């Protein structure tokens, strides 16, 4: 299997999340950009394609569902992974129904997210 670097975008308005995720995800050689401001993230997304977008669902300005909709409207190849603070059926279902690849509930280990990303990457190759 050929190894290709993934472009990953991480959006969360709490800085601890991006701060700890970035180094963890970069360990496997992928390119990670983190954003606390979802608006800025979406602007960046319009400039540059990302393979995977990881976003928190609850943010003050723009919420995760909006991010999801924006991303899918601009790129049908990008896989969106949602971080939820409270894994309720409704929120998760809404996200999945709107086309999110999967969701992951806080608290989680960087490696848990890594597994989800690998699964998404597998589908990207198909």
């Amino acid at each position, binding site marked *: 299997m050929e190894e290709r670097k993934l472009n990953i975008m991480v959006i969360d308005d*709490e800085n601890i999340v991006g701060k700890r995720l970035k180094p963890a995800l970069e360990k496997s050689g992928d390119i990670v950009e983190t954003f606390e401001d979802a608006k800025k993230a979406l602007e960046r997304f319009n400039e540059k394609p990302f393979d995977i977008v990881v976003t928190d669902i609850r943010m003050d300005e723009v919420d995760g569902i909006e991010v999801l909709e924006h991303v899918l409207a601009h790129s049908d190849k990008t896989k969106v992974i949602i971080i939820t603070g409270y894994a309720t059926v409704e929120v998760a279902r809404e996200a999945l129904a709107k086309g999110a690849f999967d969701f992951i509930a806080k608290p989680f*280990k*960087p490696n848990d997210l890594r597994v989800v990303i690998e699964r998404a990457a597998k589908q990207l190759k198909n």
Partner: protein
Amino acid sequence: MGPIIGRLKKGFRGRELTEARLQFARFRKLLENTRAIMNLVEDGREKLREEYIFDRHYVTSLLDGVLERAGMLVFDAVVLAPEGGEALYLLYDRLKAFAVERFIKEEAKEQSGCFTPSDTKTLPEEPELRLLSCALDWVTGPLPDGEPSMMDLVRLVFDHTIACLRGGSAMAKKRLEWNRGDTRHVIDVVDLEGGDVKEGPVSGYDLGCRPLGTMIAGAGWEGPRRQEGEAKTTKNWIAFTDKDQLSLRGTDDDNRLYLEATLSGHTDADFAFFFAEDPLDPKSFLPEAFHVEKTVLGAMAWNYDLPGQDMEYSLSQLGARLLGGM
């Protein structure tokens, strides 16, 4: 009599069995709530240890969970033993007020809940980590200046409750007895399922109770007729059983033991809990897998999250030591 009327009316059909079931179910609930508190603490420790990604919200809901479970725990305890339950509520209210003030309220600072580090322990730098670390210390204690911890409440709950579990032998319909070494063991068995049972002596394999069957097998019991040696002393027990649950209690004054066990083959359901009133030392007969906690009246110990086979092994060892030649 306190405001809670625990006893059913005399004329009530099946009164004894219903009361036994209620006591059994309520005490299980109490253990479930205790275990939930332990699990929350363990979950928090894991988050600290393994570099999880979490936020302040996690700490708040962890403490919230601890408080809710502790409230339920106290309630279960006073339903089982209403007399004197007031003290439990007073302590609970005090703990709750402290937790809300120091950890949960929006304005609570990340280190305001921390007691002055009494030893060399250093606190983590990141605020979320520090808050969690302090909160966990507060739950488990011990705390300086005699400040009560949540664990103190848990211990108090068990000391409060354990005496109400005595008694009940009269309603037993089955009896299991044998000699090992110089000890004669007599177990009165109450089947909580309440099925039609034949009365009188039974074989261990007829019990239809996996944990008790496992313990008896561990004790080397091979049938009602085979008895070894001359009995010098007799140990009396009462067992409440159903398919995969057991409540086994020593009824002699010098053998006040309480064992609760579930053995179903499903790790998330299986556990064993043990309480030994002083002067018994649980360390002398408990397998290693048990975590022991000292209380005023004695000591308690528990063991869970073991895969089915390990739990089986644990129980058979326990059987050997409690019901075997000792």
